[in-house]
């Protein structure tokens, strides 16, 4: 169960990081990104990645936790890439859902 929350939390993290990139920001919001927005999305992304690392470290011993975390990141990034390709308008909703579900799963299995 807990294993899923790493992936669930990294999806909004990578969604935020993608929205910090001009190309994808325009794709999703149909407007150009301001430098301020860029830093804000980056901060959100990095914080969420850190959060998923914390969850992983809580669940596994440090060495396994890092492996599991990196593995989760791979598939979260792939997922965000697929969404940006085929349904960019859905990205915000899906990322939000994944994030909420991730927080919920982490809390109930903490």
């Amino acid at each position, binding site marked *: 169960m807990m294993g899923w929350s790493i992936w669930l939390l990294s999806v909004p993290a990578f969604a935020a990081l993608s929205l910090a*990139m001009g190309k994808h920001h325009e794709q999703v919001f149909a407007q150009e990104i301001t430098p301020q927005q860029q830093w804000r999305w980056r901060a959100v992304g990095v914080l969420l990645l850190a959060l998923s690392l914390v969850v992983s470290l809580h669940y*596994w011993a440090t060495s396994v936790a890092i*492996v599991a975390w*990196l*593995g989760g990141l791979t598939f979260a990034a*792939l997922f*965000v890439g*697929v969404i940006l390709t085929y349904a960019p308008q859905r990205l915000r909703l899906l990322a939000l859902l994944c994030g909420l579900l991730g927080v919920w799963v982490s809390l109930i299995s903490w």
Partner: protein
Amino acid sequence: MSWFHTWSGLLLGWLLYAVFFTGTLSYFLDEVNDWMRPELHSSVPHNNALSAEKAIATLQTLAPEASNWTINLPNARQTAVEAMWRPQGAQGREGMKRVQLDAATGDVIPVRETRGGSFLYRFHFELYAMPRIWARWIVGIATFVMFVAIISGVITHKKIFTDFFTFRPRKGQRSWLDAHNATAVMALPFHIVITFSGLLLLMTMLMPWGADAVYDGQGNRFNAERRGMVMAPNGQRPANAQAGGQREGRGRGEDAQVKPVDLAPIAPMLAAAQVQWGDRPVGSINIQNPNTRRATVELREEGGQSLLNRGTGARLLFDGVTGEEKEAAPVRDVSSAAAVMNSMISVHLGRFADPAVRWLLFLSGVVGTFMAATGLVMWVVKRQPERRKLGYTPKGHRLVEVLNVAAIGGLSVAVAGYFWANRLLPVEMAQRSAAEINCFFVIWLLCLVHAAIRPHAKAWLEQMALAALAFVLLPLLNVFTGGSGLWVTIPNAQWSIAGFDCMMLALACVHAAVVCHLVKRTSAKSRAAAASKVTGVTPMKTALQAQEEQA
């Protein structure tokens, strides 16, 4: 740098694809081994304490005189009990005798002769039918080049980060490049660790000089120290660290005079382990000097919690006669160098992994396999315009096309064929495991011939379709050749067998998806050809253009 990536990628790509494909399957080595011995499918584990008691009773009749008994209990990756013993005076791994036992009854299950998943596992770093050292050098060099290509690729191809989330479908070469980038960059941690740890596993062969200089060429002493074993300065194991062998043989000699001593029941020991380890189960039982006064029982936890000590779990030691818990030897702390080495190797081997991490490693391997495949296909797609300009296909291009189909499509067909051979060859056949492996290579060779005589697009389509068909039918073949079907294994929680069947269905889906894509492309091509008849453009040209657009 780009030319280096292109050409080393092409030449080593075929080999690396095979290494990735068979290596990825090896993350489910135990599952493959269970599936390929359908005799074991009738063993349904319910209660491991009962299985342990039955196994000990069987060993009591099979090998009461042995110096050591080891029992590997069933788990999510193993449906039967594996019992091993070391006869008096036997040394080394070859000295061990091994049988499979039914988990419920403890009866010996005679299994067919097969190399099982171990063949695929060995193939991924030792290839086949050539001296082991050569093969390891070949794979080692390919791994080394891949490691260099990864590091240099990250530095030189800066665009991979600006295109991090970008995939542009239906754009020919562009799409292949995007797919190649995505599978390479997003699984980059996996690729770096798997290649680097692959090199570490071959370390003493690839770069022996450091250890040679320090240890005066005593490689075994270096390895033993690295694994945290104590060695006397002359390279011999000190007497007190010697497991089995003469010391215990002597003990046996004394005891042989007296009546054998009854062993304490195993169930209370397993219960004690459960109290201490909670929901982490006992994986194996090791009984030293059974039926003697100095008998000891060691319980080992299944799996481990950390990578630093090579995934060794907790242990409990009991007196074999009184059943009282004894003080186990303290676990030695690993040095930092050994910890780094161990963590790298453990990730590569994945033996420690709980199901979630094992699946992550497996899927990362699948992504890596895709990376190798897209890279190989891209070499051909990228040269389509050049071919169009020339008006004919250069021999070199055709060779790459043929080898691509055989290396990618052919390997899938051959692996599926290996599993089919496992079930279709007669059980009592002489040298059966060699015959299975021969089937694998003969099928692979036939795929190469097929790729050479068929047009490129047709060869892809036919081999992928054949692979999809062969994979999808395997769960059915399983039922008709003595194995248990999904409807039996899932309710019985025999996850090793059910997992293999599901994995075959998933592989069939992947191959079917490729077939669908190819069919769509071919029909678009024939539409283009039909249209060109009307407009008067040469069909060849439009067909190639359509193919490129669709690719």
